[in-house]
């Protein structure tokens, strides 16, 4: 496909450098200029609000031999979102988008719950059930990848198909029922603790590290960026663009599948209709909040993790503040707007100019 390339490099750099003279890079300014600074600052600010307004927010105690407190809750609940966001990051880096994430969450959770069954002993050995669930997720990814990379369908329609049909499949497996699981080892995945910390954190940490290493230690990161920025040039340089894009969708679905296991293990049941509902939107939001552009190219895995944490902290803050549910959405949108604005160099310049003007007027 000979689609036109987006020339976004120029305006971005031009914008970033407009009016900025040569500056001596001190450590402080380098820190402030770091692309992760702004998302991190937003997260810290949110936590600060919690510190001031929610008594006991940072209170941690040991209960039943593990840490217990709001922060742990946030990390625990954010885990599936972080996973989904990690997968989504790579898809977005190749200029794609995957809106079937929520459906894959439902499918993998359902498959696992179905195989383990509703008895206190597992029908199928748990390892096998988990593998089958991940296998289903990988199949979903392969399907998406085939449509997007093989057939060249536009990513949003390619994944729309699974988004619509996937949940239906999951419901078909369960006959529309919520499957409750009573097999305790399965719960460990979603609400178990290891060395006092939620087990899900270890999973997320492992996936993050593995992905980051894969990007660093192999050429995958470079290739994904190249494909995202200029697919034509990438192909001419000898990259297997189709294979890369295929891989990225498989990876994203694998992450979603893992997230699905976590979600269903956490609520000890598989809810095909509601598990991971709208998770794709939150994942995309997390990726963008973390500073990765939806136009593809440069990406930041750490940024996406921070983005996911911002979203979950925000949700949790709304609950903790005791706001009436009618205002949830308004608060959420206002915070997203503010975080976005804080990330905009243009906004900062404008604000600075305005302040200079008012001060100049006063003087």
């Amino acid at each position: 496909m000979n689609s036109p390339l987006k020339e976004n490099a120029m305006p971005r750099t031009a914008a970033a450098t407009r009016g900025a003279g040569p500056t001596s890079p001190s450590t402080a300014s380098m820190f402030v200029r770091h692309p992760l600074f702004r998302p991190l600052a937003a997260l810290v600010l949110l936590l600060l609000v919690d510190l001031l307004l929610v008594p006991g927010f940072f209170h941690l105690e040991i209960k039943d031999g593990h840490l217990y407190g709001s922060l742990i809750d946030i990390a625990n609940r954010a885990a599936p979102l972080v996973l989904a966001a990690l997968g989504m990051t790579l898809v977005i880096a190749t200029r794609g988008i995957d809106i079937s994430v929520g459906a894959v969450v439902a499918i993998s959770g359902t498959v696992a719950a179905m195989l383990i069954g509703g008895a206190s002993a597992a029908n199928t050995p748990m390892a096998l059930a988990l593998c089958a669930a991940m296998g289903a997720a990988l199949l979903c990814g392969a399907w998406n990848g085939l449509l997007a990379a093989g057939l060249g369908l536009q990513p949003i329609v390619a994944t729309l198909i699974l988004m619509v049909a996937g949940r239906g499949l999951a419901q078909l497996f369960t006959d529309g029922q919520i499957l409750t699981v009573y097999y305790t080892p399965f719960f460990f995945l979603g609400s178990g603790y290891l060395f006092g910390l939620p087990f899900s954190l270890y999973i997320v940490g492992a996936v993050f590290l593995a992905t980051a290493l894969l990007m660093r230690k192999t050429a995958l990161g470079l290739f994904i960026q190249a494909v995202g920025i200029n697919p034509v040039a990438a192909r001419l340089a000898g990259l297997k663009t189709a294979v890369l894009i295929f891989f990225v969708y498989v990876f994203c679905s694998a992450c979603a599948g893992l997230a699905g296991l976590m979600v269903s293990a956490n609520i000890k049941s598989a809810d095909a209709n509601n598990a991971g509902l709208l998770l794709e939107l939150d994942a995309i939001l997390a990726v963008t909040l973390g500073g990765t552009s939806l136009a593809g190219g440069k990406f930041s895995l750490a940024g996406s993790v921070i983005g996911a944490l911002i979203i979950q902290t925000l949700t949790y803050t709304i609950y903790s503040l005791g706001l009436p549910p009618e205002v949830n959405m308004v608060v959420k949108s206002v915070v997203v707007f503010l975080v976005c604005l804080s990330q905009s160099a243009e906004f900062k310049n404008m604000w600075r100019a305005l302040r200079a003007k008012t001060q100049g007027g006063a003087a």
Partner: protein
Amino acid sequence: MASPYFTSLVTVVLLAVLLAAGGVAYPGFLSLQVLFNLLIDNAFLLVIAVGMSFVILSGGIDLSVGSVLALTTMISAWLLQSWHLPPLLVIAIALALGAGFGAAMGAMIHYFKLQPFIVTLAGMFLARGLCYLISINSITIDDPLYVAMSQTQLPVLGGFISPGALIALLTLAAAVYVAHCTPFGRAIYAVGGSEQSALMMGLRVGRTKVLIYAFSGFCAALAGVLFSFYMLSGYGLHAQGTELDAIAAVVIGGTLLSGGYGYVAGSLSGVLVLGTIQTLIAFDGTLSSWWTRIVIGGLLFVFCVVQRLMALGAGRKT
């Protein structure tokens, strides 16, 4: 390169095939009124898709449309029922608010260099949230004009269509004219082709982008007005997920999501394809809820793949 022209053409051909298949399988499917019902029932979606196609042609995306629609129904109902304002004034206010909401998002996108996806996603939350601030209940509209608009049947060829469907078609016609015959329309294509180049060629990129989102907001509000004619109520839960339907319709209609290529008129065929799939399933009447989802997904799949393969083949021949 598979040209969007072929893709659009292929969509129309496949739509005809889909309808013919329905006619063969289900008695009564190919009656005129069923076809008109497609228009009546999807009028609001068509209007939203028209606005969305402008946004997508310019290389952007607008996720807020469904919520803006809901907000419009809510504000209209509230102004009519609680404030007893005259209906025409209410409609004017609603349209102005929609356009203003879109313009504000467009301005944020352009002037602060924010990503359309994230800005309009926040806009989506905001509009939906504002609905609940007005009321979490649904508000019934009993204004005579609205009721008349809702129940009037304009006879056409032995069947009838609703005023809403007519308005939607007029909107489409106007939008096609704007897209293809006005400098603003062409600037949209230019921005979608290459924003950087458009800027270097001296086009008013900023103004264009703000106007595009304002237009999309306007269309969403207009769809909201049509929706309140259709449902005679304002409700915060109206039209959930409509943004995805609209995007799907636009893309199925042959417009490239990366911007610059496609036709506004394609949104009509896209909307009709989605509507036909739903009608087919309703006529079948034997599918359980999950099979409905699976079959919709399956039909979408078959449609998109055939469309893609045919477009590829056609592109190769030229």
